[in-house]
C-alpha cells in the first residue's frame, strides 16, 4: 500500500522499532524504505565568535560517524529483511525540517517514526521533533512508542 516509506534514525535504539515496522510495511507492499539521518547544526553559545576550528572539526567528524553508522544499520536490516532501501544523510538543518523536506524530495507516501528520540526531556509527553513533523507533514505519519 505504501510504496516509499521514510524512516528517520537518530542513531539510538529508540528508532529501531520504527525501522522494523517500516520494513514490515514495505515487505507487505513491495515498497522501498528510505532511511534518513539528520545532523542538526552545531550548538554555538556565541555565534559571533564561531566555534574554534579543531573543535568544530572533531564535532563534525563525530556527527558524520554517527550518521554513517545509523544509516549503515538501516541498510543492513533492510538487506536481512529483503526490502529495497535507500539512505540519506542530511546536514545543516533541524531534524524535523530534514525529515519533511526529504520526504517531499523523495516522493515518500509515509513516515514511520518513534514518538520521541534522543532529545528526550523526561517530562515531555511526545518528542519535540516528532511533534513538529506531525504539524508539518503533508503525508501520513505512523508514530510508535
Amino acid at each position, binding site marked *: *500500500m505504501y510504496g516509499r516509506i521514510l524512516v528517520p534514525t537518530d542513531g539510538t535504539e529508540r528508532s529501531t522499532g520504527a525501522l*522494523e*515496522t517500516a*520494513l*514490515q*510495511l514495505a*515487505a*507487505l*507492499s513491495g515498497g522501498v524504505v528510505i532511511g534518513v539521518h539528520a545532523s542538526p547544526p552545531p550548538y554555538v553559545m556565541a555565534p559571533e565568535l564561531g566555534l574554534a576550528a579543531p573543535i568544530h572539526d572533531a564535532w563534525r567528524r563525530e556527527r558524520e560517524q554517527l550518521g554513517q553508522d545509523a544509516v549503515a544499520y538501516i541498510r543492513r536490516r533492510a538487506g*536481512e*529483511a*529483503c*526490502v529495497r532501501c535507500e539512505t540519506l544523510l542530511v546536514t545543516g538543518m533541524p531534524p524535523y525540517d530534514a525529515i519533511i523536506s526529504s520526504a517531499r524530495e523523495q516522493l515518500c507516501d509515509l513516515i514511520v517514526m518513534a*514518538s520521541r528520540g534522543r532529545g528526550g526531556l523526561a517530562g515531555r*509527553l*511526545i518528542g519535540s521533533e516528532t*511533534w513538529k513533523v*506531525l*504539524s508539518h*507533514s*503533508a*503525508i*501520513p*505519519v*505512523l*508514530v*510508535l*512508542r
Partner: protein
Amino acid sequence: MANPANTQLYKRILVPTDGSDVSAAAEHAAVEFARAHGSEIVALSVAQTYPTYAAAEASMAVDPALDTEGLRAWAERNVRRVSAAAAGAGVACTPLTVFSHSASDAILDSARDHGCDLIFMGSHGRRGLSRLLAGSETQKVLAGAEVPVMVLRPKLKSS
C-alpha cells in the same frame, strides 16, 4: 526474526470519528489500509458529555443532560459512516459509541478494551482552531497510546 512478510502486521484498527471532514479523510485511509492488510476495524465515536456544576445547572433553562439522546444519535451517525465505508470495501467493522468527558481517554480505553493494535486518526478534530497545528486530543492520544498511531493531516483546501 521471521520474515516480516509472513506476519499480519495489524489485526484490529481503531478508527475514532467525530463526523468532521478531517476524520473522514482518516476513515477513508483506514479502510484502505485495512483492506490492503487484511485487518478489521473498530469504529468509535465519542459522545462527549460536559461536566456541569449543580448550581449552574439549576440556573439553566435547559438541562444539558437532556441532550444525551441527541448526542447518542450524532455519535451513531458518525460511526455508521465508517461502517458503510468498511462494508463497501469488504472490511469487517465493529461500531462503537461511548459517552465520555474526554475524547482522548475514550479512544485510549477503547483501544485497550477491544484489543486494537493500531489507531488511525486525523491530526486534529472538529475543534481544531488552526489547520496548521496538530490538535490537543491527538496529542493526548499520542502521549497515552500503548500501540502505534497513524496520524493523517488534512489536505489544505486553500492552497
